[in-house]
């Protein structure tokens, strides 16, 4: 590993270059990513207001400090400084009064943009956001589901969010929106995006091991593109020609979206048991019971995975109750069967 100061300096220069890009709309500014929503300029306005006040006061204080440290420095043999008043009410009122007035504006503009961001307009397009450790799922009004977020540009979009396990938080820096997702209730936020493009959605409430990987891509598209996408997404099991998937293909697709992280199809144990060759075999559980891997067992495993925990594995799987339609469950069954027994 190399830690030489030189490479750091190089990094600093490079960072500054990245930070001040030539085209601010594409790359953002020194302090911010692009402004891609109606909220962003409002939020940034307050930021810069406070920023310049802060810059002014910091400069003032530091300059005064350095000036006085030099001007009034101790001189050998001269112990005391000059006479000066020990307090000054007018002065003290000034330097508590001016900040006070300045903070009123900080408070007010901040309050305005907060209320703007916190009050979804009535007839927004509604997307449901389901957060769980450690992925996102978005559900659109027509039943379409996706793991990446697509939005029509210049539209009010309301997010109705819920969590399956712990706290998460929904943050899209380009939109300046953030809202925690609290288990046991729906929380809401909304955006009106103004700039087509691709952005990142982060989870910003610490939620355990892979918190830092709980991200999703956000695509802001024009209305037509979005409409096409969401229509296709509503029935994801159609191929290019509009022909429906076979059940096995349906299962394979779901596997690739939901299950692959924990179940392998090559016989190796990951977080959970491998699916390869498991269908129809006798499963042994932590408590010593055994049971045949059949349709009923599969459904129970999906809905209530904690009920019977396979020997040698942690009870790490969360319930998928209400996530899949019957046809999808049939697809999964067909897929697992297809992996041999």
């Amino acid at each position, binding site marked *: 590993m190399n830690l030489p100061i030189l490479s750091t300096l190089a990094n600093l220069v490079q960072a500054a270059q990245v930070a001040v890009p030539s085209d601010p709309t594409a790359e953002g500014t020194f302090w911010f990513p692009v402004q891609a929503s109606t909220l962003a300029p409002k939020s940034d306005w307050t930021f810069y207001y406070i920023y310049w006040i802060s810059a002014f006061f910091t400069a003032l204080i530091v300059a005064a400090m350095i000036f006085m440290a030099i001007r009034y420095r101790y001189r050998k043999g001269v112990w005391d400084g000059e006479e000066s008043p020990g307090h000054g009410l007018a002065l003290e009122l000034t330097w508590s009064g001016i900040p006070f007035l300045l903070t009123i504006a900080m408070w007010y503009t901040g309050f305005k943009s907060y209320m703007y961001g916190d009050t979804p307009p009535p007839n927004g397009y509604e997307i449901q956001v389901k957060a769980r450790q450690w992925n996102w799922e978005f559900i659109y009004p027509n039943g379409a589901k996706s793991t990446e977020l697509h939005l029509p540009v210049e539209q009010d979009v309301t997010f109705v969010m*819920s969590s399956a396990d712990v706290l998460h938080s929904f943050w899209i820096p380009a939109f300046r929106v953030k809202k925690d997702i609290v288990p*046991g*209730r*729906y*929380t809401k936020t909304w955006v009106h995006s103004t700039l087509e493009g691709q952005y990142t959605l982060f989870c910003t409430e610490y939620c355990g091991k892979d918190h830092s990987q709980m991200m999703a891509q956000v695509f802001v598209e024009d209305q037509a593109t979005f409409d096409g996408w969401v229509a296709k997404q509503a029935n994801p099991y159609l191929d290019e020609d509009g022909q429906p998937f076979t059940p096995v293909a349906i299962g394979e697709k779901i596997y690739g979206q939901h299950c692959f992280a924990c179940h392998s199809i090559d016989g190796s144990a990951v977080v959970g048991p491998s699916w390869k060759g498991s269908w129809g075999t006798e499963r042994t559980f932590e408590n010593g019971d055994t049971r045949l891997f059949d349709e009923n067992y599969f459904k129970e495993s999906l809905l209530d995975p904690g009920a019977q925990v396979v020997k040698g594995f942690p009870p790490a799987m969360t319930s998928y109750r*209400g996530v899949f339609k019957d046809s999808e469950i049939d697809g999964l069954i067909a897929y697992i069967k297809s992996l041999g027994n």
Partner: protein
Amino acid sequence: MHHSEEKPGYDLGHPASMKMLVGVFGALLALTALTVGVAQFNFGAADLSIAMLIATVKATLVAVFFMHLNHDKGVNRLFFIGSILFAGLFMAIALGDASEYQQDLRDFEAAQELLQK
């Protein structure tokens, strides 16, 4: 024992009068009986307030007479009353906020019930 006769008249305590102590004791018992008695009737929403009012009166009696707040130093009173104010502040704001967002929790519960069906 140290009978410091050399400092006559110097006394730290103000022994409470027995009459007062017995009186307060009686009042506390009577109030307990009262609160139990009152609880047998239903005053609707006022129930809780009545019970809390009686409890507060009892607590005040204990604090003022048994705990000698009636002739204690000012700071001691200030700190004790302050603690109640701060506890009140904590509860008032936390619960005030909670009551504002309670509806969200109920909505969620209702929605969850619908989904289960």
